């Protein structure tokens, strides 16, 4: 398939930035970095063709605070349940039909939910996300829908 030069250039820039982080910007590493970034761009194009799963990375900073907050409350929640002597957990399963496209968006939602309070994804079955909940009494579905909306904001268009 034809590769969009703009997307390839963006990926190359991303890998070049990664090289600069790894080498702390050492000058004599730049030729190696250019070659490495080119090889990584080619590999990423082979494995993840640019026409699918396009993410709007510039929108990432907007949802980052929410993600970090969710991650923090996820940790606090599970710590509180683990350390309380009576250990208040009521584990169970919920199936969630997501409107997100299969692939990176849906996998990212599952991964994110696994870091949020109370939910743990186990992949999909017949297109539904399988969610293990620490407390089936809580309103899981509506909080999942909120996270889904956030991921949706990252997916093109």
């Amino acid at each position, binding site marked *: 398939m034809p590769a969009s030069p703009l997307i390839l250039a963006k990926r190359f820039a991303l890998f070049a930035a*990664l090289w*600069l*982080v*790894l*080498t*702390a*910007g050492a000058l004599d590493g730049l030729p190696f970095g250019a070659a490495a970034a080119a090889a990584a761009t080619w590999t990423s194009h082979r494995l993840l063709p640019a026409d699918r799963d396009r993410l709007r990375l510039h929108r990432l900073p907007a949802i980052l605070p929410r993600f970090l907050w969710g*991650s*923090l409350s*996820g*940790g606090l*929640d*599970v*710590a509180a*349940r*683990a*350390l309380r002597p009576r*250990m208040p*957990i009521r*584990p169970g399963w919920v199936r969630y039909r997501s409107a997100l496209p299969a692939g990176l968006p849906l*996998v990212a939602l*599952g*991964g*994110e939910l*696994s*870091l*949020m*309070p*109370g939910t*743990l*994804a*186990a*992949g999909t079955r017949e297109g539904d996300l*399988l969610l*293990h909940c*620490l407390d089936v009494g809580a309103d899981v579905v509506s909080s999942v829908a909120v996270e889904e909306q956030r991921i949706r904001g990252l997916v093109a268009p």
Partner: protein
Amino acid sequence: MIADAVTVLLIGAGLFFFVAGTVGFVRFPDVHSRLHALTKADNLGLGLVVLGAALQAPDAATVLKLVLVWLLTLAAAATVAQLLARSALEDGAP
């Protein structure tokens, strides 16, 4: 000095989550609940340790490298959690 104090606080908080994660890992009654403890608490603990270390970093590249370490671990955790949860489910765990 202030940076040192904040580092100690952040690493201390990170340790709390590591300990809590391990307690949950030992106490929770079934495989999936244990996986909850492992995925959430430990990666939060690592994030706080990384943040504390970043305050001591000599340059910006080191800060970014520390963040990269955390991001890679998060990606691994998010993947492993889903794979192990499904694997245990297929094995018949409740």
